[in-house]
């Protein structure tokens, strides 16, 4: 078979620039082969190389006393005590999910699971962060159903509970939805595996599914480019997942890891065999040689180019200890999975592959990794941002019916109950789910100790669009707050940074601002960034998504029995607001849903105040003083109070409260001032809580009490909570069904 000749045009077709192609020729001191061109194009893609983001990501704090592994591995690792580690990461699967929602989302779940169990951790909890276009957009309902179906179809079958997440709708995602998938696993601290290739002569073993001709160039052409009217043609670049194989692959790999047989292991994710072998060789400061003729395939005659670039799912690459090949194969044979030796570790620092006796790839590993291009792209503040940040409150009419406003807010797709979504996910399997979806944070218990873990996924992208620095800082603060009000001490986060085309200065500016905002919040709240990914090129026909730096944070609670949920529990409990309300309506859900304006600046964030609030919440939770605690977020105080009345899985309660202050009434009710929480407390606990609050210096106000069957905000509204609950619970399903017909 004659090799396909390579030239500059072909390089361009692979998404490489003229400069990059010339750099390849200089590095190799010759024209690359067709296969080498494919390897360079995926390894130097934005998706694999982080060439636009690398230098900025270094600004984030990544260390801490409990951090065992920061960014750079398959997932981050936190020491949670008792000899246990939490291993976690969030990752995007945006482009595939827009092209093919079910399989795109399903394989997103599969990929993040492999990133976690490849480190020796049993996955125990998945969450996700989803963004769709406007509910009225013709594709939205179909995309929601496909994505939710795919997450459930894969996650339920693979046997890992989906315990929480977030779903938002905004016209800014009409052409680019976001599917960010998170998984957390638990591993013994003394049995953590890394993705490294070391030891000359050690065998390289391929396990899992056979290689097919799917997912070619998923990383380069799909994930590292904008969409246009030809994007539908990219459907063959989307992989198809098989959760059954993943399920047994998890069991086989974890069983393998209980023995002393392997040096390193990595998932074949984006850019498949190429990236997994190159990255392992890089970390082990070694070389690697593969015989492509030995790769298990679904069909005969797959050319070497496709063998190298296929993104077929449920495959792993293992570097075993020499002489352990048979023992490794026995483990996989138990689960009817194949394990085939396809190459070995070398000391020449080269990535080499042979096919039918010929060497088709010979590239220095460093050229594909540490010496890959890195850019400092120009950044510029969007010219129209100042105009967008303007909000004239004087010109904003006050509503006449506040109860109607509250009902409207609670039935917008952003604030409506997400029960229609999460009841399609198995949130119980594994037997650890203490707080199921529907409260501020998911809480799981650890069977091996009394501890629990809290997990929350957050980002308000409207805030980020109007002020990326403040918006990103708030994403970190809110995620931490959700954990703190639930009783979990925030420790570390994984980030999924979703942006438009970084070659545009405005997008680059948003990215850098967001990084700096995250850094400020992480430093103030003492939370480290341990893993994550960057997804650029979320654009269609030149229109970028709102910047969406999603934060998935993990917190520890020493006694899981001290967890707190957001819903009121007992009539007669006092309702207390922690924190202060300012006249802040910019970028609010109220402004968008009621006044149809997305403008103004997001609320201010005082990180010292935020930290104080969180410390107080943690102390009160540990002392068992809260009946409930709920972060005040989108929709403001009125929505937080309503949610506390109606979100209990089994019962609906009422409340009577009085709000004081000389703010505009709509700002008082629906403004989104930060660093606030609505808590309820048994009268018997109030003196102790009051003493704690007074000592701390945190401002607070007693609003009223839990009682009756109405939510009464004196002077503003009185609304029957049972009816409100019904509307809030059914709104999302109704809107999805209405749009579909």
């Amino acid at each position: 078979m004659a090799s396909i000749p390579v030239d500059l045009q072909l390089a361009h077709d692979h998404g490489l620039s003229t400069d990059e192609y010339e750099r390849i020729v200089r590095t190799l001191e010759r024209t690359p082969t067709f296969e080498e061109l494919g390897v360079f194009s995926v390894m130097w893609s934005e998706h694999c190389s982080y060439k636009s983001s690398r230098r900025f990501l270094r600004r984030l704090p990544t260390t801490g006393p409990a951090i065992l592994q920061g960014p750079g591995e398959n997932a981050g690792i936190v020491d949670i005590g008792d000899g246990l580690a939490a291993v976690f990461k969030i990752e995007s699967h945006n482009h595939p999910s827009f092209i093919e929602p079910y399989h795109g989302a399903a394989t997103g779940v599969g990929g993040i699971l492999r990133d976690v169990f490849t480190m020796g951790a049993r996955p125990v909890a998945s969450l996700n962060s989803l963004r769709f276009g406007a509910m009225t957009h013709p594709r939205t309902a179909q995309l929601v159903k496909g994505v939710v179906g795919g997450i459930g179809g894969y996650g339920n079958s693979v046997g890992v509970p989906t315990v929480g997440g977030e779903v938002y709708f905004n016209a800014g995602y009409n052409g680019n939805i976001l599917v960010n998938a998170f998984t957390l696993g638990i591993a013994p601290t003394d049995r953590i595996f890394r993705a490294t290739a070391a030891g000359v002569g050690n065998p390289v073993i391929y396990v899992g599914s056979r290689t097919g001709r799917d997912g070619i160039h998923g990383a380069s052409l799909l994930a590292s480019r904008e969409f246009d009217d030809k994007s539908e043609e990219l459907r063959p670049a989307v992989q198809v997942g098989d959760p059954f194989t993943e399920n047994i692959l998890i069991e086989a790999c974890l069983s393998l890891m209980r023995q002393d047989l392997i040096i390193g292991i990595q998932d074949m994710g984006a850019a498949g065999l190429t990236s997994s072998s190159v990255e392992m060789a890089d970390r082990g400061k070694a070389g690697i040689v593969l015989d492509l003729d030995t790769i298990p395939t679904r069909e005969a005659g797959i050319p070497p180019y496709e063998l190298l670039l296929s993104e077929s799912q449920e495959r792993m690459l293992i570097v075993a200890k020499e002489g352990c090949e048979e023992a490794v194969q026995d483990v996989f044979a138990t689960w009817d999975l194949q394990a085939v030796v396809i190459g070995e570790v070398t000391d020449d620092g080269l990535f080499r592959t042979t096919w039918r006796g010929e060497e088709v790839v010979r590239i220095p590993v460093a050229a594909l990794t540490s010496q890959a291009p890195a850019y400092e792209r120009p950044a510029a503040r969007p010219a129209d941002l100042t105009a967008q940040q303007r909000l004239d409150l004087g010109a904003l009419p006050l509503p006449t019916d506040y109860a109607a406003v509250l009902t409207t807010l609670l039935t917008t797709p952003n604030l409506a109950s997400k029960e229609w979504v999460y009841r399609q996910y198995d949130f119980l399997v594994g037997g650890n789910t203490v707080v199921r979806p529907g409260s501020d944070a998911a809480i799981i218990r650890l069977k091996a100790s009394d501890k629990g873990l809290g997990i929350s996924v957050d980002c308000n992208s409207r805030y980020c669009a109007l002020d990326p620095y403040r918006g990103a800082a708030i994403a970190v603060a809110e995620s931490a707050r959700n954990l703190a009000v639930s009783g979990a001490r925030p420790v570390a986060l994984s980030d999924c940074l979703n942006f438009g085309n970084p070659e545009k200065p405005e997008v680059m500016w948003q990215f850098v601002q967001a990084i700096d905002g995250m850094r400020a919040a992480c430093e103030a709240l003492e939370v480290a960034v341990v893993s994550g990914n960057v997804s650029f090129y979320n654009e269609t026909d030149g229109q970028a998504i709102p910047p969406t730096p999603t934060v998935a944070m993990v917190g520890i609670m020493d006694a899981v029995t001290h967890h707190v949920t957001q819903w009121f529990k007992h009539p007669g409990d006092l309702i207390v607001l922690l924190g202060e309300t300012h006249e802040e309506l910019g970028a609010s859900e109220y402004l968008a849903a009621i006044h149809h304006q997305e403008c103004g600046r997001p609320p201010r964030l005082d990180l010292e105040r935020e930290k104080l609030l969180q410390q107080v919440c943690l102390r009160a939770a540990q002392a068992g003083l809260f009946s409930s605690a709920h972060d005040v977020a989108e929709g403001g105080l009125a929505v937080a109070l309503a949610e506390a009345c109606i979100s209990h899985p089994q019962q609906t309660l009422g409340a009577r409260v009085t709000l004081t202050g000389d703010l505009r009434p709509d700002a008082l009710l629906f403004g989104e001032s930060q660093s606030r929480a609505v808590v309820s407390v048994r009268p018997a606990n109030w003196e102790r809580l009051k003493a704690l609050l007074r000592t701390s210096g945190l401002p607070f106000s007693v609003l009223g009490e839990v009682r009756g069957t109405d939510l009464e905000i004196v002077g503003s509204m009185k609304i029957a909570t049972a009816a409100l609950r019904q509307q809030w619970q059914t709104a999302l399903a109704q809107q999805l069904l209405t749009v579909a017909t």
Partner: protein
Amino acid sequence: MKWGVVTFPGSNDDRDSVYCLERVLGQEAVPLWHKDQDLHGVEAIVLPGGFSYGDYLRCGAVARFSPVMSSVMAFARAGGPVLGMCNGFQILCESGLLPGALVRNRSLAFICEWVSVRVETTRTRFTARCAAGECLSLPIKHGEGCYVADEATLKALQDNDQVVFRYVNRAGEALESANPNGAVQNIAGVANTGGNVVGLMPHPEHAVEALLGGEDGRKLFTSVFA
């Protein structure tokens, strides 16, 4: 008491069943591997939930032919107690140990939630310690849990007291509005005529600890050994 918990490739709640039996209920739990016909002298068997063999053909249709199932069938026919939960119920129906079949939920979507079921008979090995008419709060999580059977089978189930659980509302009424998946006559679980084989779609093994939402599921297990 010595329990066997079968693991098929794709089983998910097998580890949770072992945890429930050993750590919560203080029983001895022995893993039974799908390729192994040896039941290791167990006195009761659990077929757990999950997606055996991926459930790609039809739920439980492949598992029914696995080597361990021939031993389980012999054990059941000899009167040994066998409990099938979710996928385990599907496998029991596929293998002919229980009548009827389970098809896709009426909504065509997977459903995960806590439901109430009413105990319809206490003459089975797994409901002996329940009160007749007692309501239990148990979680369900399935895509294909809609129980169906032909008229003759339904009549036989009724005549022989084989309907074990029905989905009910909080008042204990088996109304259509309390039926999560479209199951005929709100049937959530059935038994064989001998009462030693019981299958149900809910997950009692996930309802044995107050911390995780409730303890009503314990009675199914304690009925056998206590």
